[in-house]
């Protein structure tokens, strides 16, 4: 630490490390409480780790371990999401879920699962006979044996949702640094001096929301950690929008000890999603898919909904869940060091993020300063509404014309996002914000136009201009 660093003023109350869904919700919560917040993300864009690939379900927590921290955070997060979603323009498809049993052994477990749901405060579940399930979901395989409905399970947009959380934080004074990795830091008894790949900054407290790298960040800053991350990969298939007429509810399997199992559900974008697998691995960043697994998912999909056998696949992806060696979340405060570690947010982070943020705020109040909340917090403008089930930008006059024909993304939407407060610096960032190239043609029609529109916007451009003379006849 240099002399200059030692005298660096404390510009932030809270430094949040990690721009996944938990970090974004955290930034929003602390900013709305009046804290001076900076969010540090090592990737070039937010949502680049575990939050990049999930099943986009707004869970009720019906199958969470009863009276666990996870169950509490899901319940609170779910409730707050419903409160704020209209003002932030967040899509929600209230389609409910059916837990479907496919064997007598699974049927035998339904009673216990329903008891668990009621113990978790999800007391509106409805037992269903096989005939009732077939009547509600006529395209589902006739082999279903029974199950129950969870009315408040719903579908959300996994990307615009955390974006909106962070945009609201930014609109109320928070700062965000992307491509900014925390490389070290010291706590001097009253505040933290954080060294990053781009600058040195001082904050009163640190909140570790580093997801897949949470235990490593604890080690780096505290010299110890209370948990260790065991990355668990989940592969998914996305089916063409023609499939959406085959499924209405979220079709959940009877969960096992290790995983919630293979889910079949629509997406708010109008597709059908099948996945995830659950594969333990060492790597914290390799979210590769493999053909054999994708093929078996395709087979599994057709077992659950036979009509899917005739529907083309639009996309495939894999996500990494930051599971730990235990089932529950691993959220721990270190009050003597102005530090909270938010670890092991395995697969329910999207549903629970707002609840996790409230829980961490409570822990922080135990050692941190009192904040004064702004009286009239600002609501950010929604840059793009992406749900297939809500009005879209293409319906407006002056949309600039369609650029991505499969997802009906307009030029005006793309330009708004590129000029917005949190512009993407890569194609994947633009995809998450607008859905360009995420449709059935995967860029066949629009890559040319898109390369031109995004010229100069991305760190690694879609294409570069041919050199003078290079276009002449070969």
């Amino acid at each position, binding site marked *: 630490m240099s002399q200059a660093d030692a005298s660096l003023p404390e510009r932030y109350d809270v430094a949040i490390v990690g721009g996944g869904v938990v970090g974004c919700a955290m930034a929003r919560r602390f900013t709305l409480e009046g804290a001076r917040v900076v969010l540090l993300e090592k990737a070039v864009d937010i949502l680049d780790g575990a939050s990049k690939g999930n099943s986009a379900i707004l869970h009720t927590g019906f199958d969470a371990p009863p009276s666990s921290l996870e169950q509490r955070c899901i319940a609170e997060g779910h409730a707050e999401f419903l409160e704020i979603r209209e003002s932030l323009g967040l899509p929600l498809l209230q389609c409910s879920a059916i837990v479907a049993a496919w064997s007598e052994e699974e049927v035998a477990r339904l009673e216990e699962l329903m008891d668990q749901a009621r113990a978790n405060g999800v007391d509106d579940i409805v037992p269903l006979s096989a005939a009732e399930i077939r009547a509600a979901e006529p395209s589902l395989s006739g082999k279903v044996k029974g199950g129950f409905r969870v009315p408040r399970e719903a579908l959300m947009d996994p990307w615009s949702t955390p974006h909106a959380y962070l945009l609201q934080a930014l609109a109320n004074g928070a700062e965000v640094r992307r491509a900014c990795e925390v490389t070290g830091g010291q706590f001097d008894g009253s505040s933290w001096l954080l060294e990053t790949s781009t600058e040195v900054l001082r904050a009163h407290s640190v909140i570790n929301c580093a997801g897949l790298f949470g235990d490593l960040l604890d080690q780096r800053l505290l010299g110890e950690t209370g948990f260790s991350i065991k990355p668990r990969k989940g592969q998914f298939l996305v089916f063409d929008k023609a499939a959406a007429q085959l499924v209405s509810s979220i079709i959940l399997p009877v969960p096992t000890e290790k995983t919630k199992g293979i889910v079949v559900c629509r997406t708010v974008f109008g597709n059908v999603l099948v996945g995830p697998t659950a594969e333990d691995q060492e790597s914290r960043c390799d979210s590769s898919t493999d053909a054999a697994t994708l093929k078996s998912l395709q087979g599994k999909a057709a077992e659950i909904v036979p009509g899917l056998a005739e529907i083309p696949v639009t996309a495939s992806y894999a996500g990494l869940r930051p599971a730990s060696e235990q089932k529950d979340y691993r959220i721990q405060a270190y009050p003597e060091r102005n530090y909270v570690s938010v670890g092991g947010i395995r697969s329910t982070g999207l549903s629970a993020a707002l609840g996790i943020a409230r829980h961490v705020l409570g822990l922080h109040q135990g050692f941190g300063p009192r904040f004064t909340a702004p009286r009239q917090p600002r609501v950010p403008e929604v840059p793009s509404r992406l749900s297939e089930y809500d009005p879209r930008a293409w319906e407006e006059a002056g949309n600039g014309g369609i650029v991505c024909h499969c997802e009906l993304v307009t030029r005006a939407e793309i330009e708004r996002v590129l000029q917005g407060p949190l512009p993407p610096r890569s194609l994947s960032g633009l995809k998450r914000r607008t859905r360009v190239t995420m449709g059935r043609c995967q860029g*066949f029609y629009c890559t040319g136009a898109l390369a031109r529109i995004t010229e100069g916007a991305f760190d690694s451009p879609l294409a570069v201009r041919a050199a003078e003379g290079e*276009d002449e006849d070969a």
Partner: protein
Amino acid sequence: MPEAPNLPDACDVAVVGGGPAGLAAATELKRHGVPRVVVLDREPAAGGIPRHCGHYPFGMREFHKVLRGPDYAGRLVARAEQAGAEIQTGVTVTDIQPGGILSLITPEGTGELQARRILLCTGVRETSRAARLIGGQRPQGVLPTGALQSLVYLEKMKPFARPVILGSELVSFSALMTCRHAGIAPQAMIEPNERVTARSFAQGLPKLLGVPVHLGCEIERIIGREQVEAVQLRDRKGRRWELACDGVLMTGRFTPEATLARMGHLELDLGTGGPRVDQDGRSSDPNVFVAGNLLRPVETAGWSWKEGLRVAQSLARDLEAPRAREVTLELQIQGDAIRYLVPQRVTLPLEEAALESIQLRVARPARGSLLIRSAGRILWGRRLSALPERRILLPLDVLKNAAPDHPVEVVFEEEEGL
């Protein structure tokens, strides 16, 4: 709902898609005196795929000249306009409904168009990496040929410098030539089958250009976090190796752009991936006709142009006086060697059919007897040795002898020992 200012709200024929088939059809419809023919194209200019195929040879059948794609597209547009067709670009059709109703998006907002007949000519696209279930990471730089060509020829841009090319269809060689044109150096051509798919004249090309061809080889994984860094290949013997590259061209395996049919009310054919039609190109909705590559993957621009013309003639006759076609015969594929048939049904009598032959493709190399049977009787037969992606034509007129009330069976009786 804001109305688009420049669009008519009614017309006689709405042609969806302004490529070779759609433009040929619009021109022909005008020549037959159909009053209002509107071509709707979602791109900024009509012309279809040839717009971004900067290479030869196009236009031999249509203009008796050897043209490049963009010049060919320009001539088709000019000819349709001269004939009096109205070409509307930047217009997306989002939905078609029974009764000839089209829902539209324009830059000015949404609109609706009422047409007496709809002609769908939305063409084909290549199968994406995702639909091929190719594993690995998801970096940028994985593109179909269509995207490469629009970058190179329309935008004068290059997405990569050293890609590999997956596939060995005609379009794969077109991709090779596009690379060469743009100063892009393909590292290899990779073909999962044991032989090159395209006809022989293209086969010497890679060697000529110094591009290695790996046959019987699959891309097992794509490697790279931001941009493609390598592909992991696997051959038939299970040997794996990595090949450094900065892009992957996913060429060929065309599939009809049948979204309007798939999301709407038209019957789809699983073999072609396009709408099911009769010999006039008429779909399951009697007011909706189909022409060009939407019928099946994939034919040349010239073939699609001819098809547009012929279907337009049937359509014009239908507008004048819908003919009662009383007997409908369904064509059924027997066995798994045949990949698809077009048309999938015929309506008798057969006179003045728009589609003059039954178009057929095989799913894999096959040798044996190709037969058309009706009620146990052989109407037609021929011995042949067939390869995938090659045009095979069967006579349509033999179906006039088919038994009514029985499906027509088309069967490939394979010989052992191939």
